[in-house]
């Protein structure tokens, strides 16, 4: 999973880092862009990158390295693939490796699967997936409590995210079911999963309600009331 993230970052960072050196905005931007690409644990990237930026000395865990600090203005850049980390001569000598994807191994992997524990693991993993939405609820409640009922940009963004995630999850139910295929309690897990998502969306709706975003009052429909038609024509005045 982590190399996928790194992969995603690599494709997006260069231009950003050029212009938003060490600014918190770059983090936000990154966070948003990754959020857009794939549904992933965005907070982690942020933290990773922030750590990376906080230590520009070059010890950034291999993913970050310093460049020649003399002429270049940039202090750091991401070097994510192994190929790039090597020098030019290095690459020429290893030209044969390029044909294979990262992590490819010529040797066959020995089959070390053990049936009984594996089954349990699959089961456990499937329950993790099914209970995921339910586990998020306390966290969401906390966020709800923290964001308050005022209508401003951040609470609105929170609410939108809270509402959108369960809906998206419900829409991609078939993909989730595919994940749960191997489990014995597939239907129960599916049910729990959908109930969790429904609860999540109910929470979002409750939040909308408490923020006053739902048109549940008569005042919300006031603007649509047409002025009543006049049945009588009347005029006159003081005698001239």
């Amino acid at each position, binding site marked *: 999973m982590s190399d996928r993230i790194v992969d995603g970052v690599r494709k997006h960072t*260069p*231009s950003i880092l*050029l*212009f938003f050196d060490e600014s918190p905005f770059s983090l936000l931007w990154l966070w948003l862009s990754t959020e857009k690409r794939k549904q992933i644990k965005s907070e982690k990237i942020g933290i990773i990158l922030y750590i990376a930026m906080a230590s520009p000395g070059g010890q950034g865990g291999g993913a970050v390295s310093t460049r020649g600090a003399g002429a270049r203005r940039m202090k750091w850049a991401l070097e994510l693939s192994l190929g790039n980390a090597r020098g*030019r001569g290095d690459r020429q000598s290893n030209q044969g490796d390029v044909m294979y994807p990262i992590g490819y191994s010529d040797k066959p992997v020995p089959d070390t699967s053990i049936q009984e524990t594996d089954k349990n693991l699959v089961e456990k993993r499937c329950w993790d997936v099914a209970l995921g939405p339910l586990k998020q609820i306390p966290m969401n409640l906390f966020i709800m409590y923290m964001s308050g009922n005022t209508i401003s940009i951040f609470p609105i963004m929170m609410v939108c995210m809270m509402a959108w995630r369960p809906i998206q999850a419900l829409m991609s139910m078939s993909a989730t079911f595919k994940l749960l295929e191997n489990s014995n309690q597939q239907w129960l897990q599916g049910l729990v999963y959908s109930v969790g998502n429904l609860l999540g969306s109910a929470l979002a709706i409750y939040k909308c309600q408490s923020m*006053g975003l739902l048109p549940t*009052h*008569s*005042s*919300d429909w*006031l*603007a649509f*009331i*047409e*002025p*009543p*038609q*006049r*049945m*009588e*024509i*009347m*005029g*006159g*005045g*003081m*005698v*001239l």
Partner: protein
Amino acid sequence: MYPPSLVVTFTKKSSVKMAKLTSLFVISLSFFCISEAVFEDQVGKFDWRQQYVGKTLFAHFESNTQSSKKMFVATDKNIFASFNSRTGDLLWRHVDKTGPEGSIDILLLHGQDALMVVGDGRLLRSWDTNIGGLNWEAVLDTGSFQAACFVAIQDTVKLVAVLKKAALSLHYLSNGHQKWVENLPDSDAVQYQAVYSGGEEEVYVLGVVPNSHLTIIAYSLEDGEIIKQSLDLEVSPGFQPVLVSSQPHPARSPLSEFFLQLGPDHHVLLQLNADGYTIAPLRDFQPAFLVSFATTGKKTVAAVMTPKNETVMLRHSCDPNPRWLSPLSFPLQACAINLFSVDSGRRLLDTTVLFPLELNGGKPHALYVHAFLKKDDSVGYRVLVQTQDHALTFIQQPGRVVWTREEALADVVTMEMVDLPLTGTQAELEGEFGKKADGLFPMVLKRLSSQVTLLQAWLAHLWKLFYEARKPRGQVKNEVTIETLSRDEFNLQKMMVMVTASGKLFGIDSKSGSILWKHYLENVQPNAAFKLIVQRTTAHFPHPPQCTLLIKDKDTGLATLHVFNPIFGRKSHIALPALPRPILQSLLLPVIDQDYAKVLLLVDDQYKVTAFPSTKNVLQQLQEMASSIFFYLIRSDQGNLSGFRLRKDLSTERIWEVVLPTEVQKIVAVKGKRPNEHVHSQGRVMGDRSVLYKYLNPNLLAVVTESTDTHPERAFVGVFLVDGVTGRIIHEAVQRKARGPVHFVHSENWVVYEYWNTKSRRNEFSVLELFEGTELYNSTVFSSLDRPHLPQVLQQTYIFPSPITTMEATLTEKGITSRHLLVGLPSGAILSLPKMFLDPRRPEVVTEHSREENLIPYAPEMPIRTEWFINYNQTVARVKGIYTAPSGLESTCLVVAYGLDIYQTRVYPSKQFDVLKDDYDYVLISSVLFALFFATMISKRLAQVKLLNRAWR
């Protein structure tokens, strides 16, 4: 008969602390609140003011030199003013009290001093004519004023003599102190009319005993002793001569020549011979409308105005009967003014001045001549002509009109604002949609061609903008003419149609204030009642807009209609209905005839209805909907309100009547709602997000009464809300210990009125708001005949720190913008008071809900903030009325305040939310945008280069 009062007024302060808190809150709120005031660079950009003085009664020129620039007028509006005679601009103006208390009886001018008797002989004032400052003021003894003149002792003017009905007094010119006062003998029988002094030691007083004889009394200047009394001139009954004579200097005897008017346009120049008994005619002027004397240096000339038309002269000379010589009986093109030598009666050469008469103007009424000696010692002159329509025209030789002042505009009675027509190209584009399709290809071609013309017009407009932007701002002056008039983008420029009391109609461009057309209606009685109705707007393109003016003669009760095009002022040639009976009221129906003109119903004193226009189509429509047409009449003298229903045969039946006994209270005013008012929101959102629905009865009338008893303890003011269809009294509010004049506004679901509280001796505003409750009875139709529930009425009262003269509410296109009240103050300021402050739901104790609703906590004192004055320092003297009209922009309301002056401006009650600000920095914003755009492009390129470089490494 005091009706029970349901009024709750919150005028008590709960506690000092509370008041402090609330005032703090209000102050802090005001920072977020509307700031109305204009910026310095906006002065005069959207507003203009015109100042007037009224009908001239007396006019004098400063001195008899060619270079003098000042002239002084005193008018029937109790105004003493000075004009620059080169431009016609007002130099200074003194506005006195209205009514007989401030009326100017006479204006005399001597050197730097202007002497004025004010208020029917109550005050004698002396003004410094240079700066318009008051030198002194002296209170005169009681008695009605008759005449006044300067008195000279040994060739210098030192005194002024004032003749009252029963006394003659002499005052020093330097300080106004009285020298002596003498009672006139036999003042019951003798009508003393004139006072005269010829520079000798005597003052002469002329009295007339009706149908008997003249009497002349001479007083000694020193002590006021009667020197001699002569009773020798007998007059025959019916002797009504009009004598025009001249006394060039108070220290010398008057000229022996004088004019005698024999007919309306027949004057004779006569000379009194040296023996004092025989009179010799010098010259006969016929026809001659006006005559006047003018003196310069030692020369005195007579100016005579004659009609220019040659044929008229001929006809007159053969016609011996003077009764035929009415100046109104023939159309005139121009008048000629000539100078004549007074000594001989001979005409002076090269002194003819042509006075062009306008087609729809008034006839000449008075002539004021400013004569001066030219360098070659000949007499030159300028002349000020006053016409019957109160216009002043200043003419120079040889007939050049230097300036014209339309003083009729000092007394505007009623006005309307009419949309300007679309331009030719716009109209063409509009017309395209109405037409039937005549093939695809021609339509495409037509569309393309009209788009091209639009593009051309736009390019021309751009070019003009660019061209004008290079000039300094003062020089850019758009000449507005009737031909170039067209509606602007946001319909902010309109035609103001103004009806004045003199019967002259004006069409004024609302943007620049220039008079585009004028039309004088002759034979309008001075006390006539006017009602101006817009029957067809400019929206129906091939048909011209149409306005109808209903003029009712108060004496005979008969009414006439004047139908005209409000854009060009031309009279429409439409068959007018015969109105043989006195008309009581009129009623404009939303029904239109086949020419898109709204139907006007005229109700006569037998309650029969005449329709105008009355085509077959209209009559048919009227028959169909007769049962839903109602009207109401209010007779203030009988305290009677009555409602009528129209029958199919255009007669009426009385369906209700309310009588308010006239011995207790009298009906002062009644107001319905404005027909062009739109209410966007049908209710008010409460703090708990429920809705309080407004009671929007389109047939509701607000009737204001005042008690006949004016004792401060017993006086009261009543406000009745009456349904005009059913006569049902919806609500009555009686304000005890209150006195008028009551000014009120009735709009939407509220009535705001202002009165004088006799107990606390202060002005108070009271607001009534009507709500239907939390549920609507019938949300689709409103019928007064089916409304079982009475509305909930809320009321609050506030103290206002100033008396007011008029009040009106702002009006916008869709009614989304919040409302303001425009209040005219006696100081001449116009206050834009947010309706938010006049809200009966303002709480005494602030709660969560009231805060949610943005209600200001109740404070009894209503503030007047100087930034609420929409006319900054452009005060409008004697505001009589404020007219509001919606513009094409929802945020903008056009305002015209009229009275003695006319002031036009725009107000933005909710600020300009739908248009970029006037000072919006286009340059900065667009340069930032362009810079960002290019920066993005460049950085993209740089990033690409960098990536490539890195890939190569």
